[in-house]
């Protein structure tokens, strides 16, 4: 356990692996009946969105470029994968790789386009690229099957002598695996020279060029990466749901993916996953149940939720965690500090103690903690009594003074009342300081005892 903890602290990508392991356990829960099958399907969809949104995050968060054609590329990935599987080779890895290579070439074309059009014009250009894809999906029957869509099977792996087709739940595990790999790669990429160059390019093109960053090269990299990941999302979609038709790949979907990046957190990998869950998971999972009578309300609430997140966490919902931590260190941590210190001392003693003395130590530790708690409690009780006394005294004094003031002298009364307020707040302030001093003194006492 401690080694795992250590690993998580020193090696950030290990967290992605842990995240993946936890996610891949979900099908087991559905098998034993704790989770509904539909919930696992929903999480599967969230995983697909996470992969796609990660690509868009590289574009939007790191490189400052925008694409409104993401859904089009997702659909393209799904159809292309089916096409290659039926016509070229029916194996998951080969078909996936071929699809991604084609997607990379398409991404390069859009990257070149982005050199010519900037900002809002780039958004419009990519919007219509998405629209072109949508029209292709609807109308080119031999490639997409038109409105009736295309069917496919779960991933197949061609091994040397045999062929394995995964079940639904194993496909889910495969998706988690791919997501974790993408997360780790993305983490490495953005913490390398490439990531820094992308950020330099988006924040100041001139400075980036003066430092030797080629704008062409890094725009291409950003767009290729984003396109490949969007296409990968499409491949996972068809592999998991086994059916694709033109309806999901519209502008609406592209905007939702942008919302995932914005709500979850620019430049944050876990934030992107959180964003995908907030945008897609929460409305379907929780809000629909709450508004089971009229499910359309759930979408209104999803919209409100998103607006609230953007208002209070403009950098992304992932920063909620930092705020909670801050609150803990401000309000809770000082009160807990004596106990934490005691525990640390106990652990130190435990590490050096002989085996047979350990039980003894544990017993004394428990005793000490009990004593500490009661000692601090008693002191607090005392202090509270003193505080009440202090408040009562002040009230009594001013009551008398106000009563003594002549009836007509309103200004004097006002003044006295104001003074009373100041005195009361001072008293409260002092109380707060004294309370913290009790905790602090407890800590110092513990340290002194430990030194002896």
């Amino acid at each position: 356990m401690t080694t795992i903890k250590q690993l998580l602290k020193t090696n950030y990508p290990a967290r992605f692996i842990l995240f993946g392991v936890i996610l891949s356990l979900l099908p087991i829960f559905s098998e034993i009946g704790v989770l509904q099958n539909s919930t696992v399907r929903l999480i599967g969809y969230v995983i697909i969105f996470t992969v796609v949104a990660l690509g868009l995050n590289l574009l939007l968060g790191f490189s400052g470029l925008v694409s409104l054609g993401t859904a089009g590329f997702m659909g393209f990935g799904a159809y292309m994968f089916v096409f290659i599987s039926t016509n070229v080779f029916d194996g998951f890895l080969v078909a996936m790789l071929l699809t991604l290579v084609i997607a990379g070439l398409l991404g390069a074309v859009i990257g070149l386009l982005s050199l010519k059009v900037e900002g809002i014009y780039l958004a419009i250009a990519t919007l219509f690229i998405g629209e072109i894809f949508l029209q292709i999906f609807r109308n080119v029957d031999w490639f997409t099957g038109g409105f009736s869509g295309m069917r496919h099977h779960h991933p197949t792996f061609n091994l040397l002598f045999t062929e394995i087709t995964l079940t639904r739940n194993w496909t889910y595990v495969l998706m988690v695996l791919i997501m974790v790999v993408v997360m780790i790669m993305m983490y490495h990429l953005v913490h390398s020279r490439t990531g820094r160059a992308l950020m330099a390019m988006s924040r100041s093109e001139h400075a980036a060029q003066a430092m030797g960053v080629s704008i062409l090269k890094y725009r291409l990299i950003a767009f290729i990466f984003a396109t490949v990941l969007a296409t990968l999302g499409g491949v996972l979609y068809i592999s998991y749901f086994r059916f694709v038709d033109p309806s999901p790949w519209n502008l609406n979907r592209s905007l939702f993916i942008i919302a995932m990046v914005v709500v979850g957190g620019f430049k944050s990998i876990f934030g992107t996953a959180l964003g995908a869950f907030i945008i897609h998971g929460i409305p379907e999972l929780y809000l629909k149940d709450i508004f089971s009578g009229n499910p359309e309300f759930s979408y209104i609430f999803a919209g409100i939720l998103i607006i609230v997140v953007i208002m209070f966490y403009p950098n992304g919902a992932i920063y909620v965690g930092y705020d909670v931590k801050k609150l803990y260190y401000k309000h809770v941590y000082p009160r807990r500090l004596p106990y934490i210190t005691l525990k640390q001392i106990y652990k130190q003693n435990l590490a050096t103690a002989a085996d047979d003395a350990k039980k003894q130590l544990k017993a004394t530790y428990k005793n000490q903690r009990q004593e500490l708690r009661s000692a601090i409690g008693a002191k607090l009780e005392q202090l509270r009594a003193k505080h009440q006394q202090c408040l009562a005294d002040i009230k009594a004094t001013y009551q008398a003074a106000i009563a003594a003031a002549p009836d007509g002298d309103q200004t004097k009364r006002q003044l006295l009342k104001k003074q009373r307020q100041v005195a009361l707040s001072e008293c409260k302030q002092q109380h707060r300081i004294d309370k913290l001093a009790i905790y602090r003194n407890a800590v110092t006492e513990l340290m002194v005892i430990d030194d002896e």
Partner: protein
Amino acid sequence: MNKNNVLEVRNLTMRFGGLVAVNDLSFDVREQEIVGIIGPNGAGKTTVFNCITQFYKDDEGEIWFRNNDNEEVNLNDVKVTDVINHGLVRTFQNVELVRDLSIIDNILIGAHNQFKTNVFQHLFNGRGVRKEEQALRDKAMKILTFLKLDHLKDQYAYGQPYGVLKKIEIARTLMCNPKVIILDEPAAGLNDRETDELSEIIEQIRDEYQCSIVLIEHDMGFVMDICDRICAINFGKFLAMDTPQKIQSNPLVQEAYLGGDDDVESPGS
């Protein structure tokens, strides 16, 4: 090219439509020399820098540069992103840093072209990538220590005081083993104490890194104090290039700054 010179600007002319921003300007920079370029607002100083670093392609003229390998190159034949590879690096008038990167990462951007690994290697973060990153990180750390910024290394550039931002920009230029550093108004926005510190730093850089420094600055005390030679220009035209004392007493320069006799009007008239 003269043997002592690292940079020679010959007959540089730059026009924007009908406006001649730089007109037939020539000057040179010697090895390990601090050269100041002065002139009233709109004299074309920044344009000269932009031409030298190839952000603008000049209309006429040559910019000869003796690079790190002791070869003479005409910078007009070099792409803007390759200028830094020859050992010529610049800062900007308005600080151009990545605000949401830590200070040390900002400095590593200056070493962009010293990385040999490519994107695919970065995706997998192999041993080669880590080793290279560590080596350059150590180099950046050395520069930070040299500029006394090492205690700030993991903080974001965002929210740092202006003096620190200017220093980070200078630190970034040092990452690329520069031969000539071009500073565009390094003392703008600094208080007196920071300006003194800056002139100390610039002299230290010249001695430590054995490079030449070209700077634009409006703070005359600073320029006169630090520069070996000063080049004065006005309306894109060369006025004089000499030591600070001689520039101060040069009638042409005085006229450019104070105005000639005939067009001075007294406030009352």
